Every structure is written in structure tokens, then in C-alpha cells.
């Protein structure tokens, strides 16, 4: 866990083409400046990247039961907690690919259950992938092909601030399209910020508002209309059926439409069925023209965690190694359920990108491995601060589109260990304890 010597140039330096892991877009064109360990975003920033990079550098010590401890003792104590648990739960999982690799290995050894802090959202998509599949595209395709963008239930920008700048209103595109003539339609949601959808020529986006909770019927109606069905109802959740018919006609006429959603925004029961209606209508459109879905995610490393978990265990989270082989159950292995039912008897919470994402309250022994700036409401049995990937150490992160992965850079000197170093050390300590 020793830190290798770093080039002196790392301090007080301007770095270009920095990858920002603050949201799933992973914009990799940022210019940041490091002044004595504090980072400023100089170019291509957004609200989320500024918050992420500009947190003041802190260097807290590990703690055991609230008391300052050295890292080795905190690691040993964590291993003990895992060893004494029958069904430990490793959750949060706010990390990049290398951290997740280490977690998979530890989970296998500890017989742990795995969940991600964003699983309530991501599972809405996973269930669709596993039940029917889907037809989707990646961000460069959107940037160069989209002629009609339909956004379901979100403004996108509150979660992915630079989406329009980088992927819709880009001036040049590969196939000579007049990108300023692209059409944008917001379907569903209320009080969302639709101004980024105004074209560079000043053309207003289409807005068909409805309450989020009524999106299931609106999307089902659109699916039916795209399929050529006639609806008797005059309006669906306050949207005139005629307006939906017009949207269906435009989708059928478009050369390459993209229908975007963010599972996080579809916060109502059985939202997977609405996701499936979206993807179902995309499949319908592809009978005659081209269209792709665009599920937006990847925040807090949720796509990275799922990718790594899937290639190592066969399953995305929520999964478990408690029976010595991997099992998958998106309901049973949910953090809330595991804790509420007292099935989990130890909790290990990981959040290395974001100090605001705090562990759930629990009565079982708990370990928090987190961002150095984390302020915990309740003191866990062990707290271990780790470096932030993309600032304090390198990493590899998957983008929202599940295809592109990008290197995260080390931007400053840090004495904090990386998550993968800490997790590997915990696994080694556990191995020793198990051997005793």
C-alpha cells in the first residue's frame, strides 16, 4: 500500500482532457487546475463537475468506534466483522471498475451479498434487459445521428448537465446533418427545465407534460399509436390523444429517432413495465425506420459495478455469494430488505465518489469506506477514508451507454489509499483470520 513517488509536476498544474466521473456522461474534455491539492475546474465545467472536483482536500484518519486508528487496525477490525458475520452485506458500491474487481473478490471470500446505492433505479432497466432485451445506442451515435429526440419523464440535465451541449446541439456531425434543426420533445414530468431543449435557432422543444406517476399510461398509449392502433380516449393523463398521435407520426417519419429516459426519474412502482413500453415502441419503430432507446445512468459507478459484477459472477447486482456460488435476486438481495428482515448481520458501505451518499441506518456491525469529506450521522464501527477515483488515484469507469469506458486520472498527491488497495488488504486479513 505504499505510495510511489509522483512527478513533481502534479502539484500546481493545469491538466487538460480530464475525465469527469461526476455523472454517467463521463465528459473527458475538462481542463482542471491543481493548486496545492485543491482542484479548480477551469474549462468545460458544469454544476456537477465543479462540486465533484472542487471539494477541499481533506485527509482524515480511519476510525474504530469513533476513535482515531491506524489503517492497519481498521482493516483488521473490518476483516473481523466480516469473519464474524454469517451474511454480510456489501452495498453502496460507489466505485469504478478496479475497486469493484477487488470488491467481487472480497465478496466471494466473505460470502457477502452485493447491492448498489442506485439499484432501485438501475434494476428497472436490468429487468427489461433480462425479460425482453432492447434496442439502444451509444452517445456518439446520438451526437451524429439523432433527428428526433424524445425525452421521457426527465429533463436529463439535472442528472446529466452537459447532455445537450455535447450530444444534441453539437455544431458538426458526421453525416452533414443541420444539427440545429434537430427536434426535441419532452414527454411527461412537471416543472422540469426544458430550456436546454431550445435549439440554437431558438426553436422551442415540444412539451407534453403529465405527472410522473401517469407516465405508464402515456407511454403505453404512445406505444399503441406507433403500432397503428386507434385509441378511443380523447386524452391520456391530460395529454390530448391527437398530440400523442402527432408524436407517433413524427417518430414513424424520423430517420433516426432516439428515445431517452433515466430510470432514476421513473420513480413509481413497477416502472420496469414503463421502460419496457418505451423499448417496445423502439422495437416497433425499427420495423420500418431506425430508432434507438437511450437509457441514461452510470452515476456513482452504477454501470461500472454492474459490468464488473456481471463478468465475474455472471450476474449484475443484486447478487450474493452466501452459498459459495453466485446467486441473483433483484428483490431478495435489496439493501433495505436485507437490513429490515435482519438477514444481513454486517454492513459494509462503499461510496468513494460522493461524500453525500451515506449508509442506511442499521443495527448490525457496520463499516463505512468512504470519501474523505464524508460526515456521518451515526458513527459506524469502522470508518476508512479512501481516495477519490479520478482525483487522488487512477481508475477505469464505464459510461452511461454501457459500452465506452474511460481512464480516470490521478490529479494530485494524496496519502489516502485507493478503495481497491483497502479492499484487497481486508481480503488478505480475512484470509489470514480464516486460516487461523
Amino acid at each position, binding site marked *: 500500500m505504499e505510495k510511489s513517488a509522483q512527478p513533481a509536476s502534479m502539484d500546481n498544474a493545469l491538466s487538460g482532457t480530464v475525465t469527469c466521473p461526476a455523472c454517467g456522461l463521463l465528459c473527458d474534455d475538462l481542463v482542471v487546475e491543481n493548486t496545492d491539492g485543491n482542484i479548480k475546474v477551469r474549462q468545460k465545467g458544469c454544476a456537477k463537475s465543479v462540486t465533484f472536483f472542487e471539494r477541499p482536500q481533506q485527509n482524515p484518519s480511519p476510525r474504530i468506534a469513533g476513535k482515531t486508528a491506524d489503517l492497519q487496525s481498521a482493516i483488521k477490525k473490518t476483516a473481523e466483522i466480516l469473519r464474524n458475520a454469517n451474511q454480510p452485506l456489501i452495498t453502496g458500491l460507489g466505485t469504478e471498475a478496479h475497486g469493484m474487481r477487488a470488491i467481487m473478490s472480497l465478496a466471494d471470500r466473505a460470502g457477502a451479498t452485493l447491492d448498489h446505492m442506485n439499484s432501485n433505479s438501475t434494476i428497472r432497466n436490468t429487468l427489461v434487459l433480462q425479460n425482453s432485451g432492447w434496442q439502444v445506442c*451509444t452517445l456518439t451515435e446520438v451526437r451524429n445521428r439523432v433527428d428526433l429526440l424524445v425525452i421521457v419523464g426527465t429533463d436529463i440535465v439535472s442528472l446529466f448537465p452537459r447532455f445537450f451541449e455535447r450530444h444534441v446541439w453539437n455544431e458538426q456531425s458526421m*453525416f452533414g446533418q443541420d444539427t440545429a434543426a434537430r427536434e426535441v420533445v419532452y414527454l411527461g414530468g412537471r416543472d422540469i427545465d426544458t430550456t436546454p431543449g431550445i435549439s440554437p435557432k431558438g426553436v422551442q422543444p415540444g412539451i407534453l407534460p403529465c405527472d410522473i406517476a401517469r407516465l405508464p399510461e402515456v407511454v403505453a398509449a404512445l406505444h399503441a399509436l406507433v403500432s397503428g392502433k386507434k385509441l378511443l380516449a380523447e386524452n391520456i393523463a391530460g395529454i390530448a390523444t391527437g398530440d400523442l398521435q402527432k408524436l407517433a407520426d413524427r417518430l414513424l417519419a424520423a430517420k433516426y429517432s432516439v428515445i431517452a429516459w433515466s430510470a432514476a426519474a421513473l420513480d413509481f412502482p413497477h416502472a420496469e413495465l414503463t421502460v419496457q413500453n418505451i423499448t417496445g415502441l423502439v422495437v416497433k419503430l425499427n420495423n420500418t425506420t431506425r430508432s434507438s432507446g437511450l437509457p441514461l445512468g452510470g452515476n456513482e459507478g452504477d454501470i461500472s459495478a454492474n459490468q464488473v459484477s456481471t463478468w465475474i459472477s455472471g450476474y449484475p447486482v443484486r447478487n450474493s455469494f452466501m452459498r459459495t456460488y453466485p446467486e*441473483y435476486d433483484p428483490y431478495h438481495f435489496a439493501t433495505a430488505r436485507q437490513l429490515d428482515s435482519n438477514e444481513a448481520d454486517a454492513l459494509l458501505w462503499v461510496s468513494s465518489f460522493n461524500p453525500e451518499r451515506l449508509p442506511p441506518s442499521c443495527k448490525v456491525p457496520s463499516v463505512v469506506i468512504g470519501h474523505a469529506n464524508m460526515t456521518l450521522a451515526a458513527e459506524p464501527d469502522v470508518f476508512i477514508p479512501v481516495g477519490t477515483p479520478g482525483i487522488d488515484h487512477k481508475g477505469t469507469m464505464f459510461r452511461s451507454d454501457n459500452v465506452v469506458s474511460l481512464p480516470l486520472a490521478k490529479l494530485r498527491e494524496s496519502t489516502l489509499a485507493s478503495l481497491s488497495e483497502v479492499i484487497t488488504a481486508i481480503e488478505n486479513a480475512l484470509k489470514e483470520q480464516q486460516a487461523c
Partner: protein
Amino acid sequence: MLIKLAGGTVYDPAHQVDGKVMDIYVRDGRIIARAHDGERIDREYDLRGKVVMAGAIDMHTHIGGGKVNIARMMMPEDHRGDPVAHSAFCRAGCGHAVPSTLTTGYRYAEMGYTAGFEPALLPTNARQAHLEMGDTPIIDKGGYAMLGSDDFFLRMLTAKQDQNAINDYVAWTLHASQAIGIKVVNPGGISAFKFNQRALDLDEQNVHYQVTPREILKALSRAVYELGVPHPLHVHGNNLGVPGNVETSLKTMGAVEGFPVHLTHIQFHSYGTEGDRKFSSGAAAIAEALNKHKNVSADVGQILFGQTVTASGDSMRQHANAVFGSPRKSVIMDIECDAGCGVVPFKYKDQNFVNALQWAIGLEIFLLADDPWRIFLTTDHPNGAPFTSYPHLIRLLMDKSFRNDMFAKLNLDAQAMSTLSSIDREYNLYEIAIMTRAGAARLVGLHDRGHLGVGAGADITVYTNNADREKMFAKPDYVFKDGELVVKDGQVVKVTWGHTHTVKPEFDRGIEKEIKKYFDTYHTMNMEHFKISSEEIAEGGRGGVVVHECKGRREKTA
């Protein structure tokens, strides 16, 4: 460390050794001629009566990268049938159609395989492919970078840029994606699908670029040859799975104008339109053409019956095939104006006319192709069947009566359309060793693998000779990887990390300026981030990058 493998019956076709009893010495991971006088032998294995071959090499297997992981994510119901618990040496995972990465490495090794090559490494997804292969233990690996539907290359063809510029771009791609070969999938077709074309024949133009698959094949096969890349252009042809595509495949062999080319999973491209159901075997014509065109090699992509999942870069054809999926689900993707993918689960059934005939067509090709150095044993894992079915496939090739027994159980209409039962050929051990070792290594360009000569990496598999070839090849007695005993009696006893094989041909780096400008204008990632470093691949002690020699640029275009 000096090991002596004593008295085994050796099959080493690279050195024309066909069943000769001999000793093999291994010092520090490499095969040597003999021990020094008086040198202490640390370990001796008595291999009298055993069959000894180099470790097997799978030259076409989908083991890493986006579409494979989508397939994994899509198939929890399949994984549940084959859970893999952790053991003293191995970590947990899952097996069957699309095994987890760790299980993939263990199971290949347990079958005597010591290398596998991912044939569809999308340059935009290369990092993920290498991460997954990095979590695939024991075996060596490498990838073929996919070109041919990527916008940059198609623009070059539209602009009629000279071959040297194309060669530079191909070389740049090999470097950036850390690949050992170049593959083209449905040449131009993945791109055409994005412009709403639903089929693309060899001489049909992509509507946007006004470029034909023939032009793509010609430019890429020539680039690979002129760069001196050992592995010929790896071609997944147009019209995969379409009845009548045998004509496309035959024309494709000619389209490369004599440049070396490898036609992959040729079984899926060998269909005629004869008979009541307008679906027939084109195997005889394909085998005849293969026998004639010495610049052409092929792997079969045999199908075997049961559940699997097809994962391909061919979004155009997979979109068309999605209706045949079982269970009925599919993922179709347009990727980065660079490539695409399609994942469709399949259940091949012996009572289904088409599936039964596909099975027979694959075997007909194996048995009618004369030169085992130019035909390779694959199931296009997992598309035709999981790689774990190789021992069964080897028995089908080596045992005529077993093959005919299997054939007699098939759909009767399919039997009536196949000549399989009239073919008497049985592969022998030497030919199997060519297909799965010496020939595969030569084809991929691995100079120190696939043979047992002095200087070779000591990847060695030892079998008990058994008339039941399926049993024999399923469970080797010993497997050595770089001289270390990794498998004993068909079980992993030590986990190591294999190498990643690449080529790095010379090229004019001036092209990078153009590529950078292109990335800055059109892409959503920085060009520097597109490149995979060797350090990334070796991270965590997972085995390093090996660069194989390219014979240097051959004859530049004026």
C-alpha cells in the same frame, strides 16, 4: 526449475512429429532440447502411454467485451443451471452458455486449452474487452479489432484515399486497441443498418458512403497483408444465416484478389436454397472452393444442440434473426459510429429441420475440407455452442460410427438433405493437433505457441489415450502453462495469468493528427482515451502484453 516429461507419445505437427515417443524438457517455462550434463531435474513426469500435445488454441471465441457481458447479463436463467462454487484454488462464477470470466479461464485450461482469441474487439470497447480478458485466468488471450463499418475508414474509401493511408489507419487501430489481428463483420453492413438498409450483398453500396463490401474487403485484406500482420484479415461475411449465402461466400473468397483471408464461422455462410424448404447445404461447394483457394482459411462455427446465446457484431443480421430467439429476447445496439452488436439467445434443436441441417453442414465442411492447416475447430463460442462442447465435437470428427448414430437421430427431412452419412473420413490425432494447435498458432501468428519445439512457451497438454475421444479430450491428465502445472486430472491445481498477444506494425504516425482532429470534431471521447496502454492490461499482476513480430511493410503503393 527443470521438468522432464518422459516417454509420452508426442503429436507436434509444426515439426512433423506424428505420434513419436520422446522426452520433453522444460526449463523456466520454455521448452529446451535437453538438460545440461549433470543438471538436476526438479520434477519428472512418467508419461509412458500418454498422448502429448501443445496446449490447444481457440482462434475464435467470444470471451470478452461488451456483447459477451450483455449476453451474461441477459441470461440469469442459463447461469442458474450451472453455478460454480469457489474451491481451494478457484473463485466462484457460473458456467454453461456464457460463463463468467474466471470460470471461462478455468474451464478452458481444464480442457487442455491454453489460449483463446476474442474475435470481435470493438476499438471503442477494447478497454472493456481487455478488462474481461484480464479477469480470465490461466489462458493466453488476444483480440481482433473490428473495422469495416467504422465511419473513419468508410470515409477514407469514399474519398478514395490511397492504400498507404488505409494501412496507417489499420496499424494505428491495432496499436490503440492492443489487438493481434483485424476483423471485419458484415463488411459495411453494420453501418448500412444505421442508414436503414436491411441487407447488404457483396456488390451492393452502402447508401451513405457509396462503398461496397467488396471494396472494404479488398482494402482491409491488402492492408493487413502489407503491414505484415501474420493473421490474415478475419472475415465474418455478409448475409450471415441467409439461405443462398453460399454464393456470397464463394464470391467473397475471390473478392480479396489473392490476399490472405480467413473466413470465420463458415458454416453460417454455407447455405443454399434447394429443396422444398428452400434451405440446403452448400458445404460441398464451400469445401471445394476452400481446397482450391490456398490464400483462404476458415473456421467452422459448428452448431451443437441445446441452449446457447448468439453474440455478434453483426447488428444488421442479428436484428433480422431476433424473431428466432429462444427465449425470445434480444439486444441490438448501434455503437459509436464505429460498430454495433446484437445478442440473441438461441436453442438449437435436433428435430428442427434448419438446426439439424446446420449441424450436418458444419460437419460436412470439416470432413470435405482437405487441408487441416486451413480449417479450424470452433463453435464460434457461444454462438454455435459453448466451448465446453469441443470434446464432443472432436469425437464427431474422429468417430464415424458415433457421428452416424447422432445423424440418425436428426430431423428426417434434414437427413434427406445431407450427404454426411456417406462421408467416411475420420480425423486422426495428428490432424486434430494441427487444427487446434499448430495450425491455429500459425494462423494467429504466435511464433512460440502451438508447438513443442525448442524455445516454445511450455504450454503442454497430456491426455490418456482413450477410444472415446470425447472422454479423452474432456479431461487431460496434465496441463502445463508456461511450464507450470495448472491442471491435474482435469482439475485446476494452480491459477496463473496468461499473456495478452498483440502486434504493433510500423506505420506513419502522421496519420494521428488527422485522427485527432476527427475525434475532436465528431466523437464523444478524447483520442488519447481511446488508446489502451500496456500498463492498463498488466494491472494487478494479470500478465503482460506480448508483441509479435510483423514481417514489415511489404511493398508500398506508389
